[in-house]
C-alpha cells in the first residue's frame, strides 16, 4: 500500500481572467480510493481538477497536501507524489511508445543524472501494467485510440506517484476501450493503493468504478459519498436537470441511471 496522504481542498475559488468558475469548494480526497468528479458540462469539474493539480492558481483558498500548500512544495518534489494526465496532451511527431512513457521519469531525474536502473525498471513496469510492452518500438501515430490512451496512462504510471489525477481519460473512446481503461485503473488501485481522482462523463460507469463520487453543479460541490448514496433520481434531476429512474446495475449492483425524456412514459 502507498503511504498515507492527506489531500485537501480548502475554500477554493478559481476561474479564468475575471470569470469565477469554482465557488468555494471544500473537499478531502479519500486516501487509496478511486474518486470520480461528475457534473454537467461547464459545471467546473475540469477546472476543479486543474486547480487541484496546480495547473490553475486559485483566486483564493488553498490546495493542501500533507499540511502544506501545494504552491509551496517544490514542483519536482510535488510531481513525485502527484501525477496528472491532462485531457489532451500533445504527441511529439515521430515519438516512440518507450520514449513517451520514459518522459514520465522526469521528476525523478536531476539536472545531470542520466537514466538509472530504477528509471528503466519503472518504465518497464508501467508498460507491463498497461499491457503495451510489445508496442515499445511503435510510433504513437501507428496506434489505435485505446492503445494511445494506455500509453499515456503508462507515462503517468512511470512517474510512480501515490496520487494520480486524470481529466476525462475515457472521452472519445469506444465503450470497449472505456471499460478496458477503467479496469486497468482499478487494477492499479487494488495492486498499489494508488489514490485516483478523475473526471468522467458517463454516470453509470462512474457509479460502477468509483468508491467515492463528487457531484458538482455551477461551480459548487452538491453531494459527495458512495455512489449508492449519492446517485439518486433527485440528485440527477438537481444537477443535470434530467428526469430519470435509478435502477440497480444487474452486473455490479451499483446504481444505474435510466433517462426518461419527452417521448417515453415513466411506467413506475
Amino acid at each position, binding site marked *: 500500500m502507498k503511504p498515507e496522504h492527506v489531500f485537501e481542498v480548502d475554500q477554493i475559488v478559481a476561474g479564468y481572467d475575471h470569470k469565477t468558475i469554482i465557488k468555494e469548494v471544500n473537499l478531502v480526497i479519500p486516501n487509496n480510493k478511486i474518486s470520480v468528479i461528475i457534473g454537467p458540462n461547464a459545471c467546473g469539474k475540469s477546472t476543479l481538477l486543474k486547480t487541484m493539480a496546480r*495547473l490553475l492558481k486559485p483566486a483564493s483558498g488553498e490546495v493542501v497536501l500533507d499540511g502544506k500548500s501545494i504552491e509551496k512544495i517544490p514542483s519536482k*518534489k510535488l510531481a513525485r507524489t502527484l501525477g496528472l494526465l*491532462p485531457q489532451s496532451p*500533445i504527441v511529439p511527431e515521430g515519438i516512440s511508445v518507450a*520514449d513517451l512513457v520514459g*518522459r514520465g521519469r522526469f521528476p525523478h531525474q536531476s*539536472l545531470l543524472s542520466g537514466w538509472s536502473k530504477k528509471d528503466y525498471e519503472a518504465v518497464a513496469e508501467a508498460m507491463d501494467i498497461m499491457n503495451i510492452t510489445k508496442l515499445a518500438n511503435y510510433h504513437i501515430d501507428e496506434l489505435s485510440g485505446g492503445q494511445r490512451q494506455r500509453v499515456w496512462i503508462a507515462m503517468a504510471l512511470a512517474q510512480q506517484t501515490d496520487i494520480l489525477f486524470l481529466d476525462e481519460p475515457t472521452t472519445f473512446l469506444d465503450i470497449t476501450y472505456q471499460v478496458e481503461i477503467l479496469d486497468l485503473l482499478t487494477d492499479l488501485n487494488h495492486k498499489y493503493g494508488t489514490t485516483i481522482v478523475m473526471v468522467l462523463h458517463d454516470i453509470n460507469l462512474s457509479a460502477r468504478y468509483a468508491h467515492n463520487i463528487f457531484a458538482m453543479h455551477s461551480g459548487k460541490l452538491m453531494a459527495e459519498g458512495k455512489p449508492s448514496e449519492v446517485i439518486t433520481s433527485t440528485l440527477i434531476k438537481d444537477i443535470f436537470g434530467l428526469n430519470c429512474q435509478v435502477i440497480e446495475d444487474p452486473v455490479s449492483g451499483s446504481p444505474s441511471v435510466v433517462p426518461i425524456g419527452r417521448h417515453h412514459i415513466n411506467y413506475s
Partner: protein
Amino acid sequence: MNRFSGTKLKQVNPHIPKYFVIVLIVSFILLVVCVIVSLVFGSKMVGFDEVIDGLFHPNTTSYDANIVRNRIPRTIFSLLCGVALGVSGALMQSVTRNPLADPSILGVNTGASLFVVIGIAFFNISSANQYIWLALVGAAFTTVIVFGIGSLGRNGATPIKLVLAGTATSAALSSFVTAILIPRSHTMEQFRFWQVGSVGSGSWDSITTFAPFLVTGVLIAILTAPALNAMALGDEAATGLGVRTGILRFASSLGAVLLCGAATALAGPIGFIGLLSTHVMRLVLGPDLRFVIPMSAISGAIILTLSDVAGRLIGSPGELEVGVVTAFIGAPLLITLAIRSKVSSL
C-alpha cells in the same frame, strides 16, 4: 521488480535513437571534410601539401601556406556560427512548439538588425565588439516584445500566437530599419555588407568575442533539454511532471537569444541554418532533444561551412555571401516542411 533483467530492459527502452552511432560517425567524417575543403577552396585554390604546411609547419612561409593560415580563423568562425544557429533553432522550435520556428520567424534577427542599424546611423559604431552588444540587446528586446504580445489573452503564450506576434513584430521592425536607412547612403553601404550575412570577416578577434556567448548558450541548451522534452507533451502534462514552464521558456529563450544574437552581430543575419540542421536531425534521430540539440550543433556547423565554401566557388573570382547561399538552400526546404508538417494543424 527483479523480473526485468538488464538486457530485456534495453530492448524495450530504446532511449538511444536507433541510428545515433551511425549519425555521430558520419557527422564527424563530414566535419573533417568540411574543414579540409574550407581550407583548400576559395578564390585561390591551394594544394593539400600547403594545407599541411599551413597547419602544422609554422616556419613555412610560402604564399599558399599563408592563404591557408588566413582561412583558419574563417573556418573556425563559420563552424562556431553554425553551432550557434543550429542550437538556437532547436531551442526556438522547442520553446514555441513550432516546427518552423527559426530566429528569423520570431523576429529576433530583425530586432538585432534594427539595433545595429541604429548604432551605425546615430552613434557611428563600426566594430564587432560594439555590434555584438547592440545585437544582443536588440534580440532580447524583440524576444520580450514578441513574448509579451504573444502572452496576451487567454491560455498565455501559445505556439501559434508567438509565431503571429513574431511575424508582425518582424514586419514592423524591418520598416523601421528601412526608414532609418533610406535617407543615409553611408549607413546603407556599411549595413548592406553586414546585412547579407558573411563569415568572410571572421577573425581571431571575432572568435574570442563570440566564445563566451556561445559557451553560455550551448550550456543552457544542454541543461534544459530534459525539461524541454517534458514540455513537448504540452504545458499541462509538463506541469504535471514538475516542469515550471514559465521559467523554462525564459531560460531556453535566453539561450536562443544569446546564440542567435551573437552570431547575427558578428556575421550578419544568416537564415535557415536553425531550420535545416534541426530538421535533418529530427528526421533521422526522432524527437528526443537530448540527442537532437547536440547533433543540430554539429549539423549546423557542417551546413554553414559547406555553404560558405559553395559561396566562394560560385562567386569566383569574388565570393557570394553565405547568407545568400543558405537562403537558396533553405527556402525550398521551408516550403517542403510547410507542406509536410501540416502547419494548419497548429
